[in-house]
């Protein structure tokens, strides 16, 4: 276990290093941030001064070494646009993205597992077929377009929910979160549903497939033969076994939800780190883009690690030492 975690950590550092080299090198080939940052009427001298101030006059490898040196002390450079540490800017926006991703995942799980369970247990009923057809639709709907339709229907036409922005926040353990008050939740609802739709379809399909596979196995037959009630067979025996793959997928999908929030946040003008990175790409705010990617990559690796550990807890047959590190 310790060896496993340690090996993962070394690997994490390696992946982070490679990511930083690739992204750093790639981003620094494009455009000139100074052109965007300085006043359009600025003369050559002013531009040169700005270039020097941002450290862009040095050759690429020197800039990278400077970046690495800063990174070792937890400083990923200053944002060109905000003139503050890039990490600080990102961490400020992170709670907004995380609460959105979390809410979306909750919606997907709370609706997806029961629907998938039903579709798996009664595969030939009309309702099950409707659910499955709906899940294909959910897979096929482009997320960003659904976002627009949600705004059109619920905000513009019906006027039930606000269309864009984030509502009032409450302070929860030092984090500014909006889902703990009704007004804030109203703002979060549309983007969260938008983000949840694809994952909902995925969870429905996965649950159904698992239920159908597991229902045929001996332990279910045995449980039924023992005369256990239907509720107990499904609720305890079946559910426990289909949870194992579900936990993996839900965990891994959490990372993809955070990444996909880029799209949803742009549509709903949700001030999270996804919108931040899109804005930063267009403003050529390189330090923020690099820092965002490193933060997200780190989060992914962390999520993967937690999922692997959870997996071994849920399924005693899995030994972490055997899992490829």
């Amino acid at each position, binding site marked *: 276990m310790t060896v496993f975690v340690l090996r993962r950590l070394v690997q994490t550092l390696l*992946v982070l290093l490679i990511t930083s080299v690739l*992204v750093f090198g*790639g*981003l620094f*080939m*494009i455009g000139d941030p100074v052109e965007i940052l300085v006043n359009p009427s600025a003369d050559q001298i002013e531009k040169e001064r700005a270039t020097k101030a941002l450290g862009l006059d040095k050759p690429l490898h020197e800039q990278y070494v400077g970046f690495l040196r800063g990174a070792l002390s937890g400083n990923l450079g200053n944002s060109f646009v905000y003139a503050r540490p890039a990490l600080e800017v990102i961490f400020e926006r992170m709670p907004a993205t995380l609460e959105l991703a979390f809410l979306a995942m909750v919606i997907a799980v709370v609706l997806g597992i029961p629907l998938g369970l039903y579709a798996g247990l009664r595969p030939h009923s009309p309702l099950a077929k409707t659910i499955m*057809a709906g899940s*294909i*639709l959910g*897979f*096929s*709907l*482009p*997320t*960003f*377009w659904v976002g*627009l*339709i949600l*705004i*059109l229907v619920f905000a*513009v*036409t019906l006027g039930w929910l606000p*269309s864009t922005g984030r509502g009032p926040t409450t302070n929860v353990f030092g984090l500014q979160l909006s889902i703990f008050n009704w007004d804030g939740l109203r703002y979060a609802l549309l983007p969260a549903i938008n983000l949840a739709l694809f994952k909902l379809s995925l969870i429905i399909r996965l649950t159904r497939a698992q239920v159908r596979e597991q229902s045929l196995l001996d332990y279910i037959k045995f449980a039924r033969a023992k005369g256990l009630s239907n509720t107990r067979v499904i609720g305890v025996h079946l559910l426990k076994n289909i949870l194992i793959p579900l936990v993996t997928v839900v965990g891994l999908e959490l*990372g*993809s939800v955070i*990444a*996909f929030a*880029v*799209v949803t946040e*742009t*549509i709903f003008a949700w001030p999270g780190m996804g919108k931040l*990175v*899109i804005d930063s*790409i*267009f403003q050529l705010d390189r330090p923020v*883009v690099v820092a965002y*990617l490193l933060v*997200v*990559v780190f989060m*992914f*690796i962390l999520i*993967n690690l937690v999922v692997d550990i959870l997996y071994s807890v849920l399924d005693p047959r899995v030994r972490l030492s055997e899992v490829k590190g």
Partner: protein
Amino acid sequence: MSAVVVPAAVVETPWQRFRRQFAESRLALIGLALLVVVVAIALLAPWIAPQNPYDLAKLDLLDARLPPGATAADGMTYWLGTDGQGRDMLSAILYGLRVSLYVGIASGVIALTLGAVIGVLAAYLGGRFEQIVMRIVDIQLGFPAILVALILLAVLGKGVDKIIIALVTVQWAYYARTARSAALVERHKEYIEAARALGLGAWRIVLRHLLPNSLPPLIVVGTVQVAHAIALEATLSFLGLGLPPTEPSLGLLIANGYEVLMSGKYWISVYPGVALLLTILAINLVGDQLRDVLNPRLSR
């Protein structure tokens, strides 16, 4: 004369069996029909579109943002309305479909070829090469496609060729993984051993024997991936990172309507979205059935 028709022993060719099994699902047939229509429309766009949406001389700014069904000064009816530049939406969608399909299919074919060769080679050669390839695949699949494509396009810039490069980069790993696992199964079968015993070269065995026999799962992954690629391209274009405005795909058309959506001018975003949805839905319906038919584990 009155010959008794003796039924010949029915021997189904694999192709016949495939067709019969595929046709068992009505939903899949609907999807297939829809797909044929979509592809036909995309191919025939220049001949069936009421207007050439790229010909700026034909556009009249006075006709900008007309609702569906409005009539132009020259008597033409805008069945799906017009966009901000007075462009007929129906024509723009037909041409946009062309771009979307082209990008999706081209990137899919390139990624499949690349991924399949790498994957099969990894399975055949094993050892160091396999380890390195699979590690890269693992790491890449650990990251969501949208993020990788986003950064790539931020670096590469806009353009059809660039978005294809980005889509190939995010897709090849899926094919490589699928091809490798399919080839691992095939590798130990007798015909490969026979080929080896005949002294055939590695390339010949990989390309002529392993690859063709590893194809069915690749086709299944391929259909799903093409649908993904089309959706991903639309998403990236919507974010302003995909195609240049001179070649509007469906995603870009939807983006153009985003600004006026709040004022109730829904048609500029909604109709291209419907076209996109129908395309992806058709591919997914076909892909779903293909998976069931081509899956050897589901004994039928």
